[in-house]
């Protein structure tokens, strides 16, 4: 039986891995390739990279960072998201050594590009990222490029119509990102799509993780900040979860 994943998330800003709080406040951690190398040694099921746009970043994926990561002889699946706007960039990111790409803002701006990308790298290699927040009983999506919030209901049909072009949806609770277990489960009640979900943004709570792992639509739980400061924090979390729905922890990678 296929196991659900306990994924690790790494937020990169201005070429540095950072501890992120709601994608608004950041604290530097170190070189992304070193942070990612550690997570790979600890046997992370998957590493999700969020390379954030800043004043210093170019309008394309950060190929120099991707190359530094992929030169590290890592044998852990890696997903990269960050300014992948066209099929050429997507193919280049994959060829650099990444297995999947994440795309969020493309759905607001040019969803046809998602089809073109999928036709080249395969739908299995594409993840749709939804930056969400739940407020006043309503779910909103955040368009980070145009800096505006749109009710999820306005985009549901479009997200569904594109479902052949991506494999999973990553739900990012942007309000609770960086918090210790505050992911708003109300978000899940609003999303009724026939696609497997990756949850990220305040998931570090044993009860919440175990509850979500039992949900058949959830394929992965992603956690970031909490893994950076303790040796073997990843294996310890897996050990404490005692869940046979995930792959057992591994100490000798």
């Amino acid at each position, binding site marked *: *039986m*296929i*196991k*659900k*994943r306990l994924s690790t998330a790494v937020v990169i800003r201005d070429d540095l891995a950072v501890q992120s709080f709601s994608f608004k406040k950041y604290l530097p951690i170190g070189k992304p390739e070193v942070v990612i190398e550690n997570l*790979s040694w600890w*046997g992370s*099921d998957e590493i999700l990279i969020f390379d954030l746009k800043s004043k210093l970043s170019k309008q394309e994926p950060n190929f120099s960072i991707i*190359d530094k990561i*992929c*030169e*590290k*002889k*890592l*044998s*852990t*699946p*890696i997903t990269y998201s960050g300014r992948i706007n066209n099929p050429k960039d997507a*193919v280049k990111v*994959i*060829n*650099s*050594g*990444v*297995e*999947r790409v994440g795309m969020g803002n493309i759905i607001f701006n040019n969803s046809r590009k998602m089809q073109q990308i*999928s*036709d*080249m*790298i*395969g*739908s*299995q*290699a594409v993840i749709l990222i939804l930056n969400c927040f739940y407020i006043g009983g309503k779910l909103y999506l955040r368009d980070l490029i145009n800096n505006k919030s749109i009710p999820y209901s306005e985009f549901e049909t479009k997200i569904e119509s594109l*479902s*052949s072009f991506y*494999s*999973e949806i990553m739900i990012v609770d942007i309000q609770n990102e960086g918090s210790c277990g505050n992911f708003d489960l109300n978000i899940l009640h609003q999303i009724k799509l*026939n*696609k*497997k979900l990756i949850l990220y943004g305040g998931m570090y709570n044993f009860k919440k993780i175990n509850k979500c792992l039992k949900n058949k639509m959830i*394929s*992965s739980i992603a956690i970031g900040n909490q893994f950076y400061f303790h040796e073997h924090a990843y294996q310890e979390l897996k050990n404490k979860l005692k869940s046979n729905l995930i*792959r057992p922890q*591994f100490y*000798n*990678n």
Partner: protein
Amino acid sequence: MVYKKYSIGILDYNCGNLNSLNSIIRSLGFISFISNNKSRLLGADLMILPGVGNFSFAMQQLRNLKITQFIKDYSKNKPIIGICLGMQIFFSTSNETKKTKGLNLIKGDVKNFGKNKCKVGWDTCENIKNASINLISEKQFFYFNHTFFASTENKYVIAYSYFEKKKYPAIIRKNNFIGFQFHPEKSQYNGKKLLKNTIEELLND
């Protein structure tokens, strides 16, 4: 005793996690290089076809590089490892995006699991009894990421896996070709061990 370091050529056809595969192969103690130059690849002891991509796009890339016949000729004389899509293109056809002919080196079709269905994550495989070789232990987890699988004759299958109760080939062998539906290069300790054993098995056969 003179120890020969084997040379592994990784085919660059725009459809694979080339650099990470190259790093892993080197970490296993082999000499490896990425290329689509036929004479350079011909100098390698073994060729690997990586695979992250779409079947139609992959076949188009191979045709653009005028390398399909080269792969067929190479496979008659030297060992090849195909990974995921790099294995699927060895089959007759696929209906990914549109019906497309593959290299047809192994009879069989590449089919999807069903609309919008994708297998992503860590899973085990089941060895075939009396298979020519057993490369894995059934307790080992490997990383899968695919929406299509190869449907072929049992004689080519050495291990199966399951997705939503569907049994499908996870490891294929025909002569000196071995194909993995999963990604050994992304399966950490077990995957690296499997790649090393497979390369040595094919080169010492």
